[in-house]
């Protein structure tokens, strides 16, 4: 057993369809030139949504997700923020969100352009939170949508699928959420505190990436790990 030494957080740097990007360990993507921050699948109020169906999971996920969001915003200080869909776990989520969290979210939004992209969980604009609701939008050479398009596309950034990477090393399997990209397009990791992941080797991702260029940027404790396609295991 080896001991890991904690270090300061470092972000990953790469190019996506010609745009300079940075990504952080929480799953936020930052466009350096345009100073736009993108987060996907926040699933705010997921705990409450579960509770409505009889599973009383702890109601702290919204607070936890907002804490993460605060750190990402402090790290990059973006001019604009794009929430790439499924920002709330269900359609009633935004209106039922406790005052406390609405106020915190409003503070984070203040002084920035804020865009809500519609997702399948939250097809309607969030209630009373401000910001602009759109189906899709473009910044520089990149297009932002919730649902990834089938086949290979150039310059698309999407969410929805919650990609995760699995590696097997020395008799042990490790799973992490990840940014999935082949340099031309990207599928974002889910950002919310209660969001799981779907293996990048699942059929749902078939045909979306050039295999020889596929890279998973796995979210680590203090850095991102650049995992090549050859390391990515199914299952």
């Amino acid at each position: 057993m080896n001991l890991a030494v904690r270090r300061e957080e470092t972000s990953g740097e790469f190019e996506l369809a010609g745009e300079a990007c940075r990504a952080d360990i929480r799953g936020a993507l930052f466009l350096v030139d345009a100073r736009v921050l993108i987060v996907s699948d926040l699933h705010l109020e997921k705990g409450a949504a579960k509770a409505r169906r009889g599973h009383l999971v702890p109601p702290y996920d919204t607070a936890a997700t907002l804490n993460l969001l605060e750190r990402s915003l402090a790290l990059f200080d973006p001019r604009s923020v794009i929430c790439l869909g499924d920002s709330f776990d269900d359609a009633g989520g935004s209106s039922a969100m406790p005052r406390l969290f609405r106020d915190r979210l409003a503070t984070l939004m203040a002084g920035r352009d804020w865009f809500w992209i519609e997702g399948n969980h939250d097809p309607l604009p969030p209630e009373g939170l401000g910001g602009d609701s759109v189906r899709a939008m473009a910044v520089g050479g990149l297009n932002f949508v919730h649902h990834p398009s089938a086949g290979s596309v150039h310059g698309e950034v999407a969410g929805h699928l919650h990609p995760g990477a699995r590696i097997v090393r020395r008799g042990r399997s490790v799973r992490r959420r990840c940014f999935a990209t082949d340099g031309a397009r990207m599928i974002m990791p889910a950002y919310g505190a209660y969001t799981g992941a779907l293996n990048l080797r699942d059929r749902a991702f078939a045909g979306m990436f050039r295999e020889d260029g596929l890279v998973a940027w796995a979210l680590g404790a203090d850095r991102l790990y650049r995992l090549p396609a050859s390391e990515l295991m199914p299952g």
Partner: protein
Amino acid sequence: MNRPLTSDPTDGATLLPGAFARWFATRGWAPRPHQLELLGRVAAGRSVLLIAPTGAGKTLAGFLPSLVDLAGRKPSLPGEAHRGVHTLYISPLKALAVDIERNLAKPVSEMGLQIAMETRTGDTPSHKRQRQKLVPPDILLTTPEQLALLLASKDAERFFAGLKHVVLDELHSLVTSKRGHLLSLGLARLRRFAPELRAIGLSATVAQPEELRRWLVAQDETLPMADLVQVQGGAKPEIRILDSKERVPWAGHSARYSIGELYEAIKAHRTTLLFVNTRSQSELLFQELWRVNEDTLPIALHHGSLDVGQRRRVEKAMETGSLRAIVATSTLDLGIDWGDVDLVVHVGAPKGASRLAQRIGRSNHRLDEPSRAILVPANRFEVLECRAAIEANYLGAQDTPPLADGALDVLAQHVMGMACAEPFHADELFGEITTAEPYARLDRDTFDRVLDFVATGGYALRVYERYARIRQMKDGRWRVSHPRLAQQYRLNVGTIVEAPYLTIRYVKAGGQAARGGPALGKIEEDFLETLSPGDTFLFSGRVLRFVGIRESECLVANAPGQDAKVPYWAGGKFPLSTYLASEVRAMLGDPKRWGALPPQVGEWLQIQQLKSVLPGRDDMLIETFPRGSRHYMVAYPFEGRLAHQTLGMLLTRRLERAGAQPLGFVASDYALAVWGLRDMGEMHRNGKLDFGDLFDEDMLGDDLEDWLAGSWLLKRTFRHCALISGLIEKRHPGKEKTGRQVTVSADLIYDVLRTHDPDHILLRATRADAAYGLLDVRRLGELLSRIRGRIVHKRLEQVSPLAVPIMLEIGKERVQGEAEEALLGEAAQDEMIREAMETK
């Protein structure tokens, strides 16, 4: 019972009706004294604990009071309402309930008794369950989980109102687990329905019979414990350690060296039962035996992961005596009768004296003939352990673990179940559950917090009031707030949280989407996690190639002629028991006892004495030595792998702080090796690192808390608590497709809860479990207090003989959870190197 008492309540002979006496007589048998004594005591209205070795007629003894009572009952008149269940029999195994039904049916029909007997298990079809509720049998044979389900139904009170006896089989194995906690709560409820209920516990020999005697009755200081009827063991077993001509390996768990000699032993006996500690060991042993099976003797394999059909075929073949040998894991541990076994072989160390006694009891089911057994140690430390176990069995030493207080997650499940049955007053339910032994010491405040947890989650942030699962009515009673929640409860009842299993299914070699291949059995998801496509492994006696996972199935192809990449499935699953550990230490420290060991092992210890030192029984030896570019510290606490692993985690933190620059550690059942960049022996000598301070008990304070916070072991424990308490649901067949991305995993919940609500009741339950379970903190605490002032340090120039086994484990062990980041780093680094070296 209406029968008048005779002057001596223990004189059961006078209670035995004529039909019974004649039945015994026609067989040339006489009722055994303990059977009659138990009959007398139960007839006198007492609860009884029967402790008897296998083969003593325990089952018949347990049922005799019921059969006698039922035989004397007036036949029911036409049109009379159905009488409820008279006797409830609870067994830890479904198979055991079925087995008992078969064994009991014979005397009942031969005596011409009109007694209805039925089983009710997870396999019982729903129409039969319905019918059982309307027309209950006289004797119902079932499991703890089914009892919980029956008690959670609305007609429970009517169903159990006439209950006279409850027979609890294999009680010693039930009470040490959460299943036992759930059962104790069920028993408390049964006593409320039937205050005169008598409990009859059947048990193998245990260390503390008083604990079980108390467990059987309502907790009330004014009432006596259950009576004790004890049968002394029969003939002494003949146990020996395999006296191998081959070299006994220094380390490892395969015992491959012994195959030839084992095969000869099988040939020399009628039927041999070979026990191993893990599934993978059973696979390996089975394959190796067939490799040398020139006479093609019928040798079979039996373990819990095999397909049910295949298991039943093996059991059938065993019953009819058509097998010469069977390789088995603990699935066969409990009291199922296996007929004509005349030799038991135990491969690997038995890990506990009581476990060994149980397993040896499988051979020669007659009390007056000695059982024959051979122990096969897989490595040199196991030789010591086997020796200690043999002596313990002769001495009758018992090392069953002490009973723990009732778990809070189990209580939460029970509270929900009781709400499903009928509305309850909190005061009354508290009064009832504290009559159960494991919960007798529960304080009211904790109970109220559990109640609050069941109702609204029990969170400091109170936002779920409107989603409450149980609610108070106007009269103050609590009821379930929606019928759907009762349904949810029923699907998740029980405390057995198995590692998720996947079905193994054949596809044609190379064939991708071949459908409908046969299923071979089930395999732990944890094990599959370690495989990559193309890897080979042993299952069901075959070498299989892992093709991939599709939905909830693991696809495999035949890989004939290939060597299996045998999984390193950490040694034995059971840690060395405290009792055996102390015996092994005593043996090490006493050269006079080495004569009983095989010569090669004795020689190993002599050289150790020459080159280093052997610690006394209560001492702990620490050796330090350099090797390669690293410095090693090896400690020999002999407290079992789990406690050593925890110790290793805590020690490396402290060594880090002391500047010793530790790099890693490895733990076995016997020892712990830590390596680092600086010479820890030198540091100790010049006062920079005091071993007394290093091993001080204060490590169980802040260091433990710090480490626990992020430990994967605690996460796994939390998952179990979350499932049992009903916070999250078990995975059900057909539901897996919803997938990882939709369900909120226990890990994520744990992280959030720990940060935002660290005093939550479920985290408390988790920590309590960890102290006994995967972390074995309790035992580590005992170790640290035992060795205070008794550390013996030996500085060496090179590795000592005693250190060789643990040194051989380095690099072989599966990497633990804390190292995940390091593995990701490796995977990413390889990529960097490839990139740097690429030329195109």
